[in-house]
Structure formats: structure tokens, C-alpha cells
């Protein structure tokens, strides 16, 4: 093998040699000591990394491949289609509306559930003894399969024989039954109420734990100072809880973007497309219209939107936690 020689430079050749030597010893030392230890230690997390590769890394790559192809469910990768699917998705008002709906719903329902959850947590902390018993009871909605939650609320909200319509008509509030799931605004409200039923207990339990972690003497001091309940809440509790509330809000936001089952059972995205979330839109595109190439492009865009909406909250939660640590 011919070696490149620069004219009259033995010293530079030496330099290269010594560099190579250093490099070799570095390699050798890497290979012998730390690398071997590293590879054995990696076994601890290897199954996790493999599993996450299957559930996260591979889907990401596979979706990109699908998105730049003309693909049907039964026959994927029929032809390369470059950015056609992305252009079609971004110029489809129905998809853009579904994206907006998902983001709006996630943020709005997270605010509502955080406020309700905090209120329930305060109530449970006030009821000291029975609070604990109530807490294990309100855990049950969280454990209920969302499909069953949907069916239960569907029975309550039904126009024919629904409990709510029965009560409203008996009280003379309405003469004719209201189609809660068939009216645009009411259908969203219904999904939202069922979602509140399912997830607020979880938020309440997290808030309860956050309140329980606060030092008790703060409240005693405030009570001695003659502060009323609202002042204690506004001036003491809320600032102290802020970092934890931000983290709970973030968790709820992430969960809110996952909503699918309740929409599927309660409204099937209707009436019209009024309750069609991005997930549901993508599901119909892939499993009813079989256009998986377009569905993949929509999924990637949706993931980007989830990231864009979630990241500021991640930053806020981290910032709040740091500020808290700074005070301590």
C-alpha cells in the first residue's frame, strides 16, 4: 500500500506514527477495560432499549417511509410519492380542523381537570379521616375501561330512555328529549364530561399527594396570623404548589392528546365531523379508507403538533421545579 510522503519530513512522519500509536493504545484501552464493563452493564437496560426501539424508533422510521409512498393498507409502498401526502394533508381543511380540535381540547380539558382535581384534593384534605376512604373510591373511574365509560355515559345521555332526558323532562325543563350526542356543541361537552369523570380522580390524587408533601407549620403560622381560607390558598398554597401543579398539568396534557376510545364509542367523531380528533381522523383514513400513506403523513404532522403544544409546558415545569429548588 503506497503511503503518502511529504518531501523531507521525517519528523512529521514520526508525529503521525506517534499519533497512531496513541490512537491504538487509546483504542486498546477502550476495548479492554471500560468497553467491556460498559457492554456488560448495558445488559441491564438492553431489553428496555430493544422494546422502545420497537414501540418508538421503528414506528417513527416506518411512518416516514409510508408517508413518502403511495400506500394502501393491503398493499403498502406501491410507489414513491415524495411529499405528495404531506401537501395533501396540509391542504385538507378537515384534517387541519381535527388538529386544531385536538390541541384545543387537550389544553382546555387539562385546565378544567386541574382546577376540578385541585378542588377535590383540597376537599379530601379538609375531610382528613374520611378523605382517605373517599380517595380509594374515586380511584375506580381511573380503572374503568374507557369503552365502558363511553357506554355508561351513552346510556345516561340517550335521547330515548336516557337518564338525563328523563330527569329534565320530569322537572319540566324540556318538553322534547335533547340529542346530546347529536348536537355539535353538546357532543363535545358530553365527551368532555365523560373524560372529566375518567381522569379527574387521577389529577385529584396527584394534587392530594402534592398538598400532603407541604410542611404543616406553614398553615399553622398563617392561621395564627388570622388569614382566611382564600388568603391561605392564594398566598401560600398556590405558590408552594406551583411546580408540582405544572408537572401535573403536563402529564394531563400528554394524556389528553391520547383520547380515542371515548370519541369512538360516544360520538364516532360526529355529528358531522364536530368531535373528530386528529387521532380519530387518522384512524378513519387508515382503517376505513385504507390510505395508509396519507395517514402516515397525517400522523407525523400530528406528532409534531403534540410536541409543539407540549414543549412549552415541559419547559415551564422544569423552570418551576428549578425555581423551587433555588428557593430551598
Amino acid at each position, binding site marked *: 500500500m503506497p503511503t503518502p510522503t511529504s518531501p523531507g519530513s521525517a519528523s512529521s512522519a514520526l508525529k503521525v506514527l506517534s499519533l497512531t500509536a496513541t490512537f491504538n493504545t487509546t483504542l486498546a484501552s477502550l476495548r479492554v477495560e471500560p468497553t467491556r464493563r460498559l457492554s456488560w452493564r448495558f445488559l441491564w437496560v438492553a431489553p428496555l432499549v430493544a422494546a422502545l426501539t420497537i414501540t418508538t424508533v421503528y414506528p417513527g422510521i416506518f411512518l416516514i417511509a409510508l408517508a413518502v409512498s403511495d400506500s394502501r393498507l393491503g398493499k403498502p409502498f406501491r410507489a414513491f410519492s415524495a411529499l405528495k401526502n404531506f401537501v395533501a394533508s396540509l391542504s385538507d381543511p378537515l384534517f387541519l380542523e381535527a388538529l386544531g380540535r385536538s390541541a384545543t381540547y387537550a389544553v382546555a380539558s387539562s385546565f378544567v381537570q386541574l382546577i376540578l382535581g385541585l378542588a377535590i384534593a383540597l376537599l379530601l384534605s379538609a375531610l382528613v379521616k374520611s378523605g382517605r376512604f373517599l380517595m380509594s373510591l374515586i380511584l375506580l373511574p381511573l380503572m374503568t375501561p374507557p369503552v365502558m365509560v363511553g357506554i355508561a355515559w351513552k*346510556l345516561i345521555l340517550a335521547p330515548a330512555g336516557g337518564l338525563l332526558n328523563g330527569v329534565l323532562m320530569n322537572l319540566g325543563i324540556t318538553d322534547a328529549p335533547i340529542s346530546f350526542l347529536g348536537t355539535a356543541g353538546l357532543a363535545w361537552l358530553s365527551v368532555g364530561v365523560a373524560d372529566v369523570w375518567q381522569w379527574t380522580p387521577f389529577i385529584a390524587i396527584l394534587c392530594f*399527594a402534592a398538598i400532603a408533601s407541604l410542611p404543616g407549620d406553614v398553615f399553622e403560622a398563617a392561621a395564627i396570623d388570622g388569614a382566611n381560607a382564600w388568603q391561605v390558598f392564594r398566598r401560600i398554597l398556590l405558590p408552594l404548589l406551583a411546580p408540582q401543579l405544572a408537572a401535573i398539568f403536563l402529564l394531563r396534557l400528554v394524556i389528553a392528546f391520547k383520547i380515542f376510545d371515548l370519541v369512538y364509542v360516544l360520538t364516532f367523531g360526529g355529528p358531522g365531523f364536530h368531535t373528530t380528533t386528529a387521532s380519530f381522523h387518522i384512524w378513519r383514513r387508515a382503517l376505513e379508507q385504507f390510505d395508509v400513506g396519507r395517514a402516515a403523513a397525517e400522523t407525523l404532522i400530528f406528532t409534531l403538533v403534540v410536541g409543539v403544544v407540549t414543549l412549552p409546558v415541559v419547559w415551564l415545569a422544569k423552570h418551576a421545579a428549578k425555581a423551587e429548588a433555588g428557593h430551598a
Partner: protein
Amino acid sequence: MHSLAKKAAEISAAALTLGFFALPIAFLISVSFKTPDDVLLGRFLPTHPTLENWPTAFAVTDLAHFILNSVIASILAGLLTIAIALPATYGMVRLKVGQAWLPDFTLSSYVAPPIVAVLPLFYLLKAVGLLNSLFGLILVYGFMNLPVAFWLLAPFLRQVPVAIEEAAALDGAGPFVTLVRVVAPMIAPGIAATLLISIILSYNEFLLASTLSQTDAARTLTVGVSLFQGERLENPGQMAVASLAGIVPVYVLALFGQRWLVKGLTHGGVK
């Protein structure tokens, strides 16, 4: 006097809250004892209670089979999750393996909505011949719940005093023996909570199951019940029976493990 009024307000607020959370389940129970005509009256309680819906719902559908499928899939998936998550979490939290990136990567993989995984996993399972099989679903659930399991387990592991592990190491125990013999028994409530929550998440899952297992043989309960809506059970009473029968296993599990669940969900914050 003032504090009495306050107590009364608190108790009525608690009663209202409890009523709201009890309502859908209570109504399901009530509807399960109603005839179709009785349902149309729109009352809370049945006027002429009937037991007929219960045997009929089990007779006209594969309900029992679907429940069994769900129970098997969720328990095995839960055990798989623990088997992977416990050593991995211990490796990250205590042995500092992949500490710089793996915890963040694990948690951020939870952010993606499940719809993201539907198509890729559909084609993957199809390619390896695991579509429409309970085994395929068990693997998927076992893997999908890992971020949650890590989130639940990590705080428990961090609370274990380092001195205990050091003592075990001085006695000549390797890290694996230390984890199994010393650390795992100490965080048993955390492991129990994580196992229960993983099982419940798998049992309740619908979107992936509806896509990845579409045959009767491998169908799980949530998918089966969603199909009853359009097909066999036009009768709301029988629909309520199917829903309740499906809820019972999770509620039994939740009541049996309520102490661990509350502790697990609050990172041991509520004693």
C-alpha cells in the same frame, strides 16, 4: 357555629362529588335489570326488575371468552413489563447505565399518542405472523407500558438507602443478586402497584387491540363490547350486563390492591 356550617358545606360537596363519580356505574347496574320497555321510561331505578339480561348477554355473545382473553393478555403483559422495567430502572437509577439519555428517552416515548404505533405495529406483527394472536398483543402491551412502569418504579428505587446495597456488595453479592434478594423485597409495594397499573392499562386498551387482533379467537373484551354496540346487543339491558361483567375484574383488582395503587400513583407520597 361558623365551623359547623363549614363542615356541612364540606360534607355536601363531598357527597355531590361522590354522587357524580358513582352515577354512571350505578346507572349501568340499574339498566342491567331493566327490560327494553322499562329503559325507555328514562327513570333511574327499574320499575319491574328482571334478571333475564344477565344469562342472555352471556348466551348470545362470546363475552366469557373475551373476558378470559383480556385477563390472560393483561396479566402476562404486566409480568413482561415488570421483568423488563425492574432491571432497567435499577440499571438507570442505581448503576447509572445510560443515565445521560435513557431516562429522558423512555419518558418522552410516552408522549406520542398511541395512534402513532398502530400502522407500524400492524405491519410488523403481520410480517412475523403474530397478527390476530394473543401472544402478539401480549408483547405489544408488555412493551408499550414500559415508560409508565419506569415512571412509577424510579421514585421507589431512589428511596432505597445506598448503604444497604453497599452492605450487600461487601457480603460479595453482585448487583443482580442485590436487586432480587435485597432491593426488590424492600420496594415490593412499588412493584405491586406498577404490576397492577400495567395490568389495568392492558386490560382497558382498545385502539391497538381493535387493529392488531380482529379475529374472534384472539379478541379482547373492550373490542368485543364495542362490537356488541352495532351487532348483537340492541338491548340496552344486555349492553349494560356486558359492560359490568367486563368492569368487575378490574374493580376486584383495584379494591384488592387499593393501598398499593394510591401509594404507587403518588410515588409513595401518601402513606
